[in-house]
C-alpha cells in the first residue's frame, strides 16, 4: 500500500521540468553509448610514415664486424634496411626470405644493398643467429636504439627501402617475402630511372 503522496501547492504551480532534464541527460548518455559501442580494439596504422619522400635520417654506427657504417655514404645504391631481433618470432620466420633476397640482388646489376639493424638485442645473440642460419650482409649495431627511434620503429620486423639519392620510399611493417620485395624494388627502379 503506498502512502498518499504529498503534493504541496507550490509543486502544482511549478512547471514540469523533470521530463525535459531526463531527456537531455538521456541524449548525452545516448551519444556516449554510440561512441562506446563503436570502439574497437585498435591497431595503429603503421604503413604510413612521415619520412616518405624525405631524406633518410642520419645513421652513423658500426657493424658487428667492426667496420663503420654511414648511411649517407651509401648514396648511389638502393638500400634496404631490415630491423631485426633474434627473439622475435616473425623476424626469425622471415630470415630465410632475406637470405634469398640478398642472393638474388647480388646477381643483378644495380642490386640493392641489404643491411640488418639490431633492435633491442645483444650483438652476440644476433651474430650467433646469423652464424647458424646464414646471411652474410652487414649487421649494424644500434646500442641505444637511436636508429630505430629516428625511423619511428616501435616493433619488429620492419623493412625500409631508400633510393640512391637517399630518400625514403617504402616501409613494410610486417614480414616480407623475397619475391614481393624484389618485385617492388624493380618497380621502384623503373620509376626512378
Amino acid at each position, binding site marked *: 500500500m503506498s502512502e498518499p503522496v504529498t503534493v504541496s501547492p507550490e509543486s502544482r504551480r511549478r512547471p514540469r521540468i523533470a521530463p525535459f532534464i531526463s531527456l537531455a541527460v538521456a541524449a548525452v548518455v545516448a551519444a556516449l553509448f554510440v561512441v*562506446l559501442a563503436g570502439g574497437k580494439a585498435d591497431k595503429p596504422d603503421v604503413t604510413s610514415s612521415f619520412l616518405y619522400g624525405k631524406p633518410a635520417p642520419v645513421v652513423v654506427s658500426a657493424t658487428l664486424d667492426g667496420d663503420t657504417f654511414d648511411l649517407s655514404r651509401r648514396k648511389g645504391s638502393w638500400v634496404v634496411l631490415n630491423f631485426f631481433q633474434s627473439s622475435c618470432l616473425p623476424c626469425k620466420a622471415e630470415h630465410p626470405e632475406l637470405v634469398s633476397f640478398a642472393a638474388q640482388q647480388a646477381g643483378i646489376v644495380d642490386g640493392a644493398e641489404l643491411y640488418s639493424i639490431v633492435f633491442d638485442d645483444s650483438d652476440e645473440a644476433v651474430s650467433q643467429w646469423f652464424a647458424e642460419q646464414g646471411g652474410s650482409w652487414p649487421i649494424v649495431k644500434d646500442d641505444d636504439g637511436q636508429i630505430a627511434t629516428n625511423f619511428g620503429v616501435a616493433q619488429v620486423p620492419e623493412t625500409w627501402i631508400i633510393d640512391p639519392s637517399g630518400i625514403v620510399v617504402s616501409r613494410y611493417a610486417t614480414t616480407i617475402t623475397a619475391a614481393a620485395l624484389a618485385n617492388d624494388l624493380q618497380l621502384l627502379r623503373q620509376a626512378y630511372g
Partner: protein
Amino acid sequence: MFAATSLNGLVGHAALVVGLAASVFGALGLAIATITSDRRLLRSIGNYAWLALGGAVIAVVVMERALITRDFSLAYIQQVGARETPVLYNVTALWSALEGSVLLWLLILAIYTAVIMRRNRHRLDDPLVAWALVVMFVVTAFFFLLSFGPIDAFKAGPIPNFNRCCLGPNPLLQNHILVLFHPPILYLGFVGFTVPFAFAIAALITGRVGEGWLMATRRWALYAWGFLTVGILLGGWWSYEVLGWGGVWGWDPVENASFLPWLTGTAYLHSVLVQERRGMLRVWNISLLVATFSLTILGTFITRSGVLQSVHAFSNGTIGPYLLGFFGVIVAVSLALIGWRGDRLRSPGAIDSPVSREGAFLANNVIFTVFAFIVLLGTVFPLIVEALQDRQIAVGPPFFDRLSMPIGITLLFLMAVAPVLPWRKASTELLRDRLFWPAWCGAGALAISVAVGADGLAPLLAFFLAGFAGGAAMRQLVLALRRQGWRGLVGRANGGMVVHLGVILIAVALAASNSYTRVAEFTLQPGVPVSYGGHTFELVELQQFTDARSTGVKALISIDGGQTYAPAITTFTNFGTKIPTPSVRNGLLNDLYLTLEPSVRFDGTEAPVKIFIKPLVIWMWIGGMMMALGTVLAGFPGRRRRSPTDPVSAPIDLETAGV
C-alpha cells in the same frame, strides 16, 4: 582422465543454471505477487534468494576446487592455472581473468541479495521493499546470464598443449599478496551500491520518495563507499609497490572506472544529509545513486571490453555489448522513472542562503559532478576522436593532473569551511568566530611548509587549506568529545570528521610527493657507496635467483650502512616478460624508493639503479586507514533528536526499519 575431472564443469554449469533460474523466477514472482497482492506467492519468494546464493556459492567453490586440483579440462583453468603456481596465487587466480572475476562479482551480489531478503522477509508485502528486491534479482539474473552465456567460466577446454597453455596467471598478479585483497574489496564496494540503487528505483516506482528508503539503505551506501575507498587505495599501494615507476595513480582508464562511482558516491553521502535534515536535494540524491550504480556497470564495461587501452584491462571481445546494453537499459529505465516522478520529488523548500550547510553541500554536489564529468570525458575522449576523425590519440596523466588540481584545492576549501556552517544561514560573526582557530592552524601548517623549504604556489596553497580543513575537523571532534564523551567519536558527523582528516592526510601526501620528489640514476659498483639526498647507498652484491616459476636478478643495496633492500628484475619463464620489482624503505618523512633498471646485465656485477626520494608518501596509507576507521565510526548509530519542527523527511528509526 578428463572425463572424470570434468565433473567440475558439470557441477559448475548446474550451479549457474540453478542460480539463473532462481533469480529470474524470483524477479518475476515478486513482481507478479506485488502487482496482484498475492500473499501466498510472497511467502515463498524468500527461497529463491537462497537458491540463487547457493548457485553462486557452489559455482565459486567448484571453480576453486578446479584451480586447486589443477583440472586442466576446463578452459579457464588452462588460462590461469599452472602446476608451479604457489597456493596463494593459485587461489587468487579465480579473479585474475575475466570469467572468474564475474563469478566473484556474482557471489557478492548473491550474498547481498540474500541478506536483504532475510532482513526484510516480514515486510515483503510492502511494495517498496518488494520492488527493491525485484531490482536486485534482475541484476543478479543479468550476471548469471553473463557467466552462463557469453563468458562461460566452466567451458571445457581443448586437450591441453602444455607448451601453450597452463602458464598461470599474469605475472603481475603472482607478485604480491595484495592480489588477495584488492579485487575482492573493490568488488564489495562496487556491488554494494546495487542495494541503495535498488531501493531508489523502488521508491521511484512506488512514488514514495520521502523518507523510508533512504534511511533503510544509509549504511549500505556508507559501507559500500568505504570498501570502494579502501579498494582504490589498496590499488594505489599495489601500483607503488609493484610497478616500479614510483607513482600511486596513473589515470589509467580502469583506474578511472573505479574512481568515477567513488566521486558520485561521495557526493551522495554528503547530499543525503540535506535530505534527511531539510527534505531537499531529493532529485540530486536519486540521480547520484543512479549515476553511481550506472558508473559501476560502465566501469565494468571499460575494464572488460577492450575498447580502451589499459595495462589493467582484461578483455574478451564478446562481453562488451552485453555490459554496454545493460548499462543502456539501466540508464534508460532510471531516466524514464525520474522523468515521470521527478517533479513529485522536488521539495517545496528552498535553500535560504549560499552560506549555509545546505549551500555548501549543494556546491559539493556540483563540484563532484563536474569532477566526474571531467574524468569521464578524459577517459572516453580517445574514442570520441576515433569515431569522428578515425585517428588515435591518448589522453594521459598531464590532462587529469592539470584539471584535478584546482578542483582539489576547491574541495579542500569546502572541507575547511563547511563543518562549521550551520543549517539555513550563517552570519559573518559566526563564521569569524568558528573559523578562527582552524584558519590559524592553516597558517601554522603553511609556516612549517615554508620553513622546511617548500616552494610553488599550488602545493603551498594546498598545505594551507589542508591545515585549515584539519583544524576545522579537529574543532568539531574536540567539541563533540567535550560534550558527549566517547560518544563524540561515533555517529555520522563525527565519523565524517575522522574521514575528513584521512582525506586531508592523503591530500597533503599527494601534494608533497607530486611536487617534491627527487630522482637520480646511478650505476652502483659493489662496495662503492654513493651519496644522494642525505643517505648513502652501497651495492653489496648483484645476485641471480631461480625458482619454479621465474629467474631473475636482484641488487642487494645497503642504505646508510644498515638494512639491505633488494630491487629486482624477474623473468617469468612461462611469459618471457621482465617484471621490475622495486624496493622501498618507508619512513615518516621520506620514502627511499629503489628500482633496478632493465639494462642490467644478468651476469654482471654492477647495478644500474634509479633512486627516488619521495616525501610523505606513508601518510597516504595512514590517511587511508583513518578513512576506513572514520567510515566504521560513522556507521554507529548517533544520537537522534525528535522535535515538532523536524522536517517532513524525518528519519525512521533504524532499528525498527529492519535493514
